[in-house]
């Protein structure tokens, strides 16, 4: 337990998501991740005097899609605003963002609530803006190196209502957000590459209280595990302060995951005064009812609808349906094999079992699934047709996972097919009986354990190529 239940933690999230457009928001430079430093730059995105931004149409389309998928109202008349501050990652000394008329408002995402049931996390607004450059500390010179490749990559910032009460709820929301944005193809949401970053606003209050406590903000959290630890750590810190007569200061804190502790950041002098004003270099955007309806119709089936359908039509358990629909990749793996005729429940069992097991064992995310999706279905098909036993299938799957080999060929090459010729199985078992007369006598005198031993010996002699039921049946028949 992190704290006594006398306290309730209240959180809201600001999530920055990089859109997967081909080009930056205001210039034609590529948004490709990585690249040699300062090679994805032009006079516009490095803020040369006299240049003018030119808005990428796809950014507005993607933001509209995201808003609709997150059940938001779309703002018909949009403008950009200028947020002014001095920091070396921002070469213009201002960021073009949306303050007064964000593109989406009043949405929501349904998640599984802490303690069961479902709840809706409200989305206050989503706005479009540009990303900043990347700063790297250089120990050799004790200075900061700046790479502007990421500067101007389009972002949407998704601002939630303060509806979270636990770290689990935060993580479920982020997983759902990630799945939805991946489904609709507006972002790859790779946390390790920084294309999904979360700021957490956190306060605590006595359980049952309606008023909010003073909150702190933790910025740029980029792994689910770190988020879980940061929330636990910061809640405990605030509760400890309040229980010992202290007070929480409203401030931005940096979570140090190695030290498992948060630290107050030196407040940027007058950082709050961004002197926002309407961006004079960009023309307003009008989104018509027609475009909104078109976009709405173009959306694919979303995770929530899929989850319900998997349970009601395919008979999956609530848990399995929730887990599979939480990932675009797992859905693709599931649906491709389902379409090829694989039985739904068996397929779900394999995904939730072996696939998840090997992914977590190798420290991979579903996005990194290293084998052809069809291989899983082919393998399950062989089990269904009794061509291989279940235990053989697990071994073959390990090889498929590690080497992306074709399971059918692998079974052929390694001679793993179940012996279906009962005559051949019989011959092997007869040899086992002949070599284990003592156990045969014991069995005949009523010792059931002796039969288990003989089954084991036979299975070993058959090298797992016959299923235990057949072996047991033949043994019993031969032993009379």
């Amino acid at each position, binding site marked *: 337990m992190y704290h006594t239940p006398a306290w309730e933690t209240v959180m809201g999230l600001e999530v920055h998501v990089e859109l997967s*457009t*081909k*080009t930056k928001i205001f*210039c*034609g*430079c*590529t948004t490709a991740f990585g690249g*040699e*430093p*300062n*090679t*994805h*730059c*032009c*006079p516009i995105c*490095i803020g040369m005097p006299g240049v003018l931004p*030119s*808005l*990428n*149409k*796809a950014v*507005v389309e993607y933001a509209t899609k995201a808003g609709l998928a997150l059940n938001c109202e779309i703002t018909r008349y949009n*403008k950009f605003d200028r947020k002014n501050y*001095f*920091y*070396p990652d921002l070469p213009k000394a201002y960021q073009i963002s949306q303050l007064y008329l964000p593109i989406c408002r009043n949405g929501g995402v349904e998640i599984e609530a802490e303690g069961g049931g479902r709840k809706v996390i409200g989305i206050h607004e989503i706005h479009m803006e540009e990303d900043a450059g990347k*700063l*790297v*500390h*250089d120990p050799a*010179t*004790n*200075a*900061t*190196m*700046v*790479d*502007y490749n990421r500067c101007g990559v389009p972002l949407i910032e998704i601002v939630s209502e303060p509806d979270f009460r636990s770290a689990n709820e935060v993580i479920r929301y982020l997983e759902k957000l990630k799945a939805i944005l991946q489904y609709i193809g507006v972002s790859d949401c790779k946390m390790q590459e920084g294309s999904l970053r979360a700021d957490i606003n956190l306060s605590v209050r006595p359980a049952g209280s309606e008023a909010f406590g003073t909150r702190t903000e933790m910025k740029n959290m980029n792994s689910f595990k770190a988020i879980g630890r940061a929330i636990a750590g910061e809640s405990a810190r605030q509760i400890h302060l309040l229980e010992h007569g202290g007070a929480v200061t409203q401030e931005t804190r*940096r979570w140090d995951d190695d030290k498992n502790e948060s630290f107050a*950041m*030196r407040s940027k*002098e*007058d950082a709050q*005064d961004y*002197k926002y004003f*309407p961006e*004079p270099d960009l*023309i*307003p*955007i*009008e989104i018509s009812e027609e475009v909104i309806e078109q976009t709405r119709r173009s959306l694919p089936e979303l995770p929530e609808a899929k989850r319900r359908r998997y349970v009601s039509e395919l008979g999956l358990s609530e848990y399995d349906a929730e887990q599979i629909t939480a990932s675009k990749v797992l859905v693709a793996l599931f649906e491709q094999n389902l379409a090829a005729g694989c039985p739904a429940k068996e397929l779900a069992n394999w995904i939730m079992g072996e696939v998840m097991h090997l992914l977590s064992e190798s420290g991979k995310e579903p996005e990194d699934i290293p084998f052809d999706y069809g291989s899983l279905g082919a393998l399950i098909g062989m089990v269904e047709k009794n061509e291989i036993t279940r235990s053989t299938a697990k071994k073959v799957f390990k090889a498929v996972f590690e080497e992306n080999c074709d399971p059918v060929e692998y079974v052929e090459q390694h001679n793993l097919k179940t012996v279906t010729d009962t005559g051949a199985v019989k011959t092997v078992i007869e040899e086992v009986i002949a070599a284990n007369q003592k156990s045969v006598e014991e069995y005949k005198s009523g010792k059931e354990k002796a039969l288990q031993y003989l089954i084991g010996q036979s299975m070993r002699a058959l090298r797992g190529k016959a299923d235990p039921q057949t072996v047991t049946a033949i043994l019993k028949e031969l032993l009379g």
Partner: protein
Amino acid sequence: MMITDELVTYLEALGRIRLPEESRAKAQRDLQEILQYIDTLSELDTEGIEPLSHALPLTNVMREDEVQPSIPPEEVLANAPVRKDNYFLVPRSFE
């Protein structure tokens, strides 16, 4: 609104500049005059009029999402006062 000496100091901080001592009084006076000039606009009745952010009667000026060549890093870094490899080098900005 009064442009006080403290406000001038605050504006210096926001703009990351330091005015020469002899210019402060003039800056304070100029800023006050600019504000007064703008205040004359408040004499107009703007009830029910949408704020205008652009003089052009245009909306939706957008480009297609097609990659254009970037410029070589040599040009990107041409004006950098200090560089290291192909990075700009700036005073330490981490805590």
